[in-house]
């Protein structure tokens, strides 16, 4: 089974944190990242650009584009990765090694784990 994991962060908290404090957290990420890679179960890791988000939708039969994310919230998706695991608990255990699950309390970091129903790599 594949599980889609989304990394969330708090946009405002990110702005409030000093450069030094942020650097301190960032320096603790590398060993966790390394460990996550070492499980061999993680693929398609990505981090996302904060600005320049466009949302597309059809409204009144017309395609419209709006500036900004679909859900207006201070918590935004900042990264994603895919975990290959035998079940949800194994996926949770593996995703639990991601920096956003272990660090960043002051940044509102969190990881959401979602089972993938259908997956096709083009």
């Amino acid at each position: 089974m594949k599980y889609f994991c989304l990394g969330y962060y708090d946009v405002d908290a990110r702005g409030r944190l000093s450069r030094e404090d942020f650097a301190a957290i960032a320096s603790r990420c590398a060993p966790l990242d390394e460990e996550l890679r070492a499980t061999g179960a993680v693929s398609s890791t990505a981090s996302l650009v904060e600005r320049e988000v466009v949302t597309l939708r059809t409204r009144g039969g017309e395609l419209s584009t709006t500036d900004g994310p679909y859900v207006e919230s201070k918590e935004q998706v900042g990264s994603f990765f895919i975990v290959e695991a035998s079940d949800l608990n194994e996926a949770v255990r593996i995703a639990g090694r991601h920096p956003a699950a272990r660090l960043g309390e002051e940044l509102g970091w969190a990881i959401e784990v979602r089972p993938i129903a259908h997956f096709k790599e083009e």
Partner: protein
Amino acid sequence: MTKGDAEHPAGSTQAVNTQAVNAQAVVESTYRSESRRVLATLVRLLGDLDLAEEAMQEAFRAALEQWPSGGLPENPRAWLISTGRFKAIDALRRRSRVDHWDGDRLEAIAGAPEEDAEMQRALEHIPDDNLRLIFICCHPELSHDAQVALTLREVCDLTTEEIARAFLVRASTVAQRIVRAKATLRNKQLSVELPAAGELPRRLDAVLRTIYLVFNEGYAASGGEELTRADLSGEAIRLGRLLVDLLPDPEAFGLLALMLLQDSRRDARVTRQGDIILLEDQDRSLWNRPQIEEGRTLVDRAIRTGTIGAYTLQAAIAGEHAAAPDFDATRWDRIVAYYDLLLRVEPSPVVELNRAVAVAMRDSAEEGLKLVEQILARGELSDFHLLHAARADFYRRAGRREEAGEAYRRALELARQEPERRLLRRRLGEVE
């Protein structure tokens, strides 16, 4: 012929591939036969369920990489345990740079005795390790839901999603139960020791109850996908067998016997439409005879130990029903005697009610009524639909149709499961 061709003749690539395929098949079959044992021993060596699971996965991953080229180790189980332990030490070493807690654990684990002696001991202790894993998953500090989920996942190797389907809950709910249960075990440091002799009865009770809960979830005709639910009963019986192998306690025999005997009637107890068929109306040729034989042998074995508990007595009662060639030949005198004993071992109004039904069969419906009225007079089970259903049956058989109708209506008010309600409505129609 060039040198390259000599080294890699056309046939040998295929041979290597076949070998690789075989090795992968060997790893897979080793996983099925050994993964629980390897996990159980790693839990003892590492003192933590999550760490042990991770180490086990890593060990099997390493096997997939190494066995195809390096060949099968002499003792695959020992290889997996040893590899798992080293993988865990590696992981903790990496983590100790981030996490002080992991660093402390590393000292405890890496400081364990030398490898050879350790492995030898590890292999000698495998039955204990399996038993320990069951006791860990059924720890009394955990909720019943958590015990069931953890046992099915760690001991039976069901996935979170399979457990969720069988219990008609969401996978995320089960996942959370398991994560929390593991955290409880870790925080209270409950994981590694087998219960001391003095504590064993209480701990064993929790194990037996968990297994019986799994069985009943699969046996109850409460809807859901029937196949998955029958599988749950199968898992419970498998657990019961494992427990009997590891810990030949009389009540472990009793529970296995009870499950086998109840399950032997599975095909005869509901119609294709999901309606309940009462014991007296069941087609006894559909009962699973080998399972009945096995169950009754186990009951005898448990009784011969001289320590007779509640599961054994319930199994003995089920065994009497199973032994009767037809409903009229049922030895109700023996069944009442077993209920008398059961009341002494585990007094409860529900057991009293069941005994009243047996007395009504042995003597008369009036005698059964008297006993049920006594339970009601004490203010017990007045909201229990089965008490009113039994009362109604007694009135019906005594020819007191009006009182029977009233009692069926009361039972209908209280019953929740649809097949039971249909049966009650049918009976009500008969007396109206």
